[in-house]
């Protein structure tokens, strides 16, 4: 048997997250095949045969696959599953949307957001926003996994020589129609993928104070601006800036928390950051327990000093 990775496409071709899924798939110890679906994507499928570590690329084409709609894609996955021991995709919004639907139709207890593959049936996955790791065993038979792309290094896009096989498309179910897609062009980095994130808590006082205090420093650092749930609930920062278990989970190289107490839900959303800095006037704030560097000081003095130091 072999393992089938479901490719995700964007305007540039196969996404890097899919190549991370191929790395994860190769750890199951079987041949790895890649399924490329889309509308008029023969060129991308043929390009995909060069991806490292694949023995076969399956290509299914048709307008029904143009936008990755789960309703149209799952019949194909269900049909292919009989030939495979595992179906794998990256835990992106695409993978998370499609694979559970297929899992239900195949009556499989799937494993989502795998961060470690111990053996072919045993996996580690995070729960409670990364505050807990669960080691789970999938039942015998078909396994369906999504993997967290940031923990599996993407295989190379070139160097391989896989066979190419064309499949018959399963067609349009007509249940859902794609209307439009807007990819955000932000004037600052996106929270979920920013290299640097600075965030503030309720102690920033007001929406005006929040913006006026954090924006200049964010500009100097090229950082995304995040907020605690308390700051969002108090109307100081927009909903989509909420960092934490119930907001956006971030993993930047540098996370700086200003006036953040360190509630469990916030800490859950930042713990994969490379370096965490906490600035809080309260020396007993729980945030200091997860911070790599802490300053027990008033953020309103620290932030201008930081700006000045970085500009110098």
């Amino acid at each position, binding site marked *: 048997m072999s393992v089938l990775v479901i490719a995700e496409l964007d305007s540039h071709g196969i996404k890097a997250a899919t190549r991370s899924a191929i790395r994860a798939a190769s750890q199951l110890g079987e041949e790895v095949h890649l399924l490329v679906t889309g509308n008029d994507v023969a060129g991308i499928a043929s390009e995909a045969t060069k991806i490292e570590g694949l023995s076969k690329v399956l290509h299914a084409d048709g307008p029904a696959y143009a936008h990755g*709609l789960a309703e149209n894609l799952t019949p194909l996955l269900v049909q292919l599953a009989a030939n495979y021991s595992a179906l794998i995709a990256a835990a992106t*919004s695409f993978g*998370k*949307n499609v694979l*559970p*639907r297929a899992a*239900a*139709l195949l*009556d499989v*207890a*799937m*494993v*989502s*957001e795998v961060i470690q593959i111990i053996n072919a049936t*045993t996996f580690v996955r995070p*729960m*409670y*926003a990364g*505050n*807990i*790791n*669960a*080691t*789970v*065993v999938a*039942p015998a038979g078909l396994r369906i996994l999504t993997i967290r792309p940031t923990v599996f290094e993407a295989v190379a896009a070139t160097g391989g020589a896989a066979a190419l096989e064309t499949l018959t498309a399963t067609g349009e179910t*007509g*249940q*859902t129609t794609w*209307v439009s*897609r*807007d*990819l*955000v062009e932000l004037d600052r980095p996106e929270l*979920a993928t920013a290299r*640097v994130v600075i965030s503030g808590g309720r102690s920033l006082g007001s929406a005006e104070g929040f913006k006026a205090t954090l924006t200049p420093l964010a500009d100097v650092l090229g950082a995304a601006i995040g907020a605690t749930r308390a700051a969002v609930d108090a109307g100081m920062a927009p*909903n*989509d800036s909420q960092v*934490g*278990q119930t907001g956006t989970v971030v993993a930047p*190289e*540098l996370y700086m928390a200003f006036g953040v107490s360190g*509630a*469990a*839900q916030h800490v859950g959303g930042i*713990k994969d950051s490379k*370096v965490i800095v906490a600035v809080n006037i309260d020396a007993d704030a729980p945030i*200091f*327990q*997860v*911070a*790599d*560097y802490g*300053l*027990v000081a008033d953020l309103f003095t*620290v932030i201008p*000093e*930081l700006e000045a*130091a*970085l500009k110098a």
Partner: protein
Amino acid sequence: MKILVSIKRVVDYQIRPRPTQDGLDVELSNVKMSINPFDENAVEGAVRLKEAGVASEVVVVAVGTAANQDVLRHALAMGADRAILIETPSVVQPLTAAKYLQAIAQRETPDLVLTGKQAIDDDAAETAQMLAGLLNWSQATFASNIQLADGRATVVREIDGGQETVSLQLPAVISVDLRLNEPRFIKLPALMMAKKKPIETVPAADFAVSAPVLTVLQIAEPPARKPGKILNNVTELVAALRAEKVLP
């Protein structure tokens, strides 16, 4: 139009979860439990559709132990009309939950099922999509805007790097994101009124549901971060961050 909202009772988001002594579960005894925050957005979304005259009835359903009465009562206080508890002996995994919800959806025949995009305990984000598959209904996940008209739902979905709009044929299953709305604060009169609303309990045994499950080998805290350093001033901080190569 009838809307069914699926909710889950989870460890409150403010609580730091701990493994049990045997390392096979998360400690749930004497821990504050609440409605899953994303499910609260789903209840709010359904109640607003009712208040706007688009929906005629909002029914909430939970799959789990008898303790789920409290989160169902919370949803009733938010404005749901009635509640159903499918009572199981313990917390169930997503595929099992989806199969119970399928049974209730087949009995209740709603036009729309709403639920949170994921539960903040297992973070699986699977149940809504599984339910849609089992029912062979349309699905939209991570919704931040829902408009209903002419037998269709137009949904804005949060996707990686932006948003996407899709149009679904009803009936459909929609999982909602935080950005959909801000759940209302429940006032005392609403809480009192909710006590009079019905909660129907259906023993799980009434449905012939069986599903494969994952076996849990271990529940553990992830490896701890290395101990941090308290510095004295901004100069030391900048030097430290430059040494870590996270600042230019």
